[in-house]
């Protein structure tokens, strides 16, 4: 399958590495032969219609900062939109940075790809939080696939798990700890650290973004909640429908106080009628009281009760694996057609 990869940050590079290491294995076991026709980063692009040599591209990126410095196939000014028009690819993989304000430029990339009949895998929450119902409508109208399992829970297969829970049953409530950074901070406050120190530590460990406000103020959680609400509950909602409160006002005293009653705070995103993100008091024994950078999501169904999945939430490699999972799914669907 011919792929255009937009974004060559941590996730994009991890994907390339996995394909180098496990390419043969993926071909043998899943019949998946991923051919990178083009890779685009902020400096430009590299294009080879016969399929790029990933080792070469990774080296160029490492040594000179942008894939566009590739001596043979590098291009200085080629945008994703132009390349979609020029090249005939089967799949757009969108691994561009998240923008939760209006989902751009990712929203425009995805829309263009779907309009051209190109399948899309994205790990970018921005366009989905902003326009998931619209993008799903467009994909189904054009008869192509839109996959995004890497946007929620990283390598933890949350959406598939939820769909299993809902078979012959109905999910009525979703609650989840969906942001590793804020969960790390609260966990360290339980250990006795001040908010600012916990935040600094999270940044040093590489959990938090350089601008951690998306994590702390609850927007990242809200974006993931919107994706779950659309995909699992069939709602047509966007991030504007979520009432959002972050952990920025939580103090060490608050956290220590409730610990005495064997309770703690978690930044929980919840769909139960409406959509809400807020620091919520839970029992220490509750399955959602996961610690440090872990994620956990509970799905309550009308017949079989509450099911919880927990695991490591984010990370480049984990997210790249989610992309591979989506590619396998698309290959299967295209093969059936």
């Amino acid at each position, binding site marked *: 399958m011919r792929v255009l990869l937009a974004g060559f940050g941590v996730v994009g590079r991890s994907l390339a590495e996995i394909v180098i290491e496990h390419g043969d294995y993926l071909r043998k076991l899943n019949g998946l032969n991923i051919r990178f026709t083009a890779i685009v980063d902020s400096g430009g692009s590299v294009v080879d219609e016969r399929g790029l040599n990933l080792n070469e591209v990774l080296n160029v990126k490492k040594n000179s900062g942008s894939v566009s410095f590739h001596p043979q196939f590098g291009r200085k000014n080629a945008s994703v939109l132009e390349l979609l028009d020029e090249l005939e690819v089967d799949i757009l993989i969108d691994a561009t940075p998240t923008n939760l304000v*209006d989902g751009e430029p990712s929203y425009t990339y995805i829309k263009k790809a779907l309009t051209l009949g190109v399948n899309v895998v994205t790990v970018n929450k921005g366009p989905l939080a902003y326009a998931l*119902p*619209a993008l799903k*409508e*467009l994909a189904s*109208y*054009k008869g192509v696939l839109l996959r995004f399992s890497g946007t929620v829970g990283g390598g933890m297969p949350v959406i598939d798990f939820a769909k299993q829970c809902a078979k012959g049953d109905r999910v009525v409530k979703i609650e989840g700890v969906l942001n590793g950074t804020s969960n790390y901070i609260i966990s360290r406050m339980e250990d006795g650290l001040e908010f600012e120190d916990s935040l600094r530590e999270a940044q040093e460990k590489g959990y938090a973004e350089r601008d951690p406000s998306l994590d702390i103020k609850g927007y990242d959680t809200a974006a993931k909640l919107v994706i779950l609400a659309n995909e699992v509950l069939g709602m047509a909602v*966007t991030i504007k429908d979520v009432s959002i409160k972050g952990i920025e006002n939580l103090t060490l005293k608050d956290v220590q106080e409730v610990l005495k009653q064997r309770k703690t705070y978690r930044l929980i995103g919840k769909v139960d009628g409406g959509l809400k993100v807020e620091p919520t008091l839970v029992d220490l024994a509750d399955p959602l009281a996961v610690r440090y950078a872990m994620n956990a999501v509970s799905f309550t169904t009308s017949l079989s009760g509450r099911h919880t999945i927990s695991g490591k939430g984010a990370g480049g490699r984990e997210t790249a694996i989610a992309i591979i999972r989506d590619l396998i799914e698309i290959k299967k669907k295209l093969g059936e057609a």
Partner: protein
Amino acid sequence: MRIVMKFGGTSLGDGEKIKNAAKIIRDHLEKNEVIVVCSAMAGITDKLFSLVEKGVRGRVKDVETTLNEISDTHLKALDAALSNENLKKEVKQLLEDLFNELRRAVMSVLYLREVTPRSRDYIVSFGERLSTRIMWGALTELGVNCKYLDGGDAGIVTDSNFGEASPLMEITRLEVRRRLGSLLDRGITPIVTGYIAVNEEGVTTTLGRGGSDYTATILGYCLDVDEVWLWSDVDGLMTADPKIVKNAKVIPTVSFSEAIEMALFGAKNLHPRALEPALQAGIKVRIKNTFNPSAPGTLITTTSEKSGSVVKAVLLVKDVAMLTIRGASMVGRPGTVAKILETLARENINIMMISQSVSESSVSIVIKKQFLAKALSKLETALLGSKLVEDIEAEEDVCVVAVVGEGMRGTPGVASRVFGAVAKKGINIRMIAQGSSELNISFVVKDEDGPEAVRAIHEEYNL
């Protein structure tokens, strides 16, 4: 309040009328946010369709004449609607550009002697594009900060079913919010072309049935408005056609189901499809008259207010025909009705009413009169000589009387009152149908008895 106001073709019939509509908008802007939707000026869309036909037939002179008529109408309207000369010049340039664009499109049809649904949509879209420019001038002259947009620029995205496109609602909602939302936030009044949109690739499409009303309710749905006002040249939905019943009145409130029922039976130019988005979002729709703007009009709403009367309106549907298919051997033989329906469906003929006696020896259907000859011939071909059917009888001198009202549901005795009133006038009823929704009772009488039957029921229920 946030209101979508749609102005029909008759309300924009000439320059004075456009000026009048602009004043209505300005007056409501004092207390409200308004999104304006304009139809084409009266008669223009028909002319555009005829341009296409003339083009295909290669009638060069006729094309020229019609093109000139279209530009004359608009330039005259512009002259009367605006007085500021500079502004007039600016709008005139906009119109001239559109005339040229239209001329080029029509010329290519003329040369190729060929038209596709896609190019037809493009050509017929000019009516709304022209009228919005004049409205923009008129509003600007009144000091309103406004902007004209084509349906696609406003964010309405449809499928590629040219001529009868359906909106992709989620994409439309997103795009409309993003484009018109930001205009409204900046205090700019959007003036949007009714009827026209674009597909996902940006090619012009038209919404077909429901037209500009549909545009208005789509925008209402997307922008969470409080009300959609459909301005035209009538005071609202009436209890009966005032030409038939002298004391017919405007109905102050109807439910969506009643309105849809009345629309199906041809009340005004309302199309049921256009009410869908409003019904879905629970947005009130008002029908108002630009020539009598202070009149309250008719309010269409989801909260069904039980009015005093169980019957809301009595409608007369003319230009119909009744076909009766008879045959003793049809009794107990399944499939005859299926065969009738299938035959007519294949010819794209819509069945308005159907009824069958329990004895199964005859089936009656009502269709539009224009399809009668075709329907009769196709049914004869399909059914006669099959031993099942002995005779197919057509009656052209009939009409349908429809009695509409949500209050009829679960109220016993409606039928006896309705038919009692008709019987008292000595009118013979040929055929009856009532859906189990009980929203309407319709029956067929002779053409000459129609008006009398309507008056009798109108009187019986004191409408």
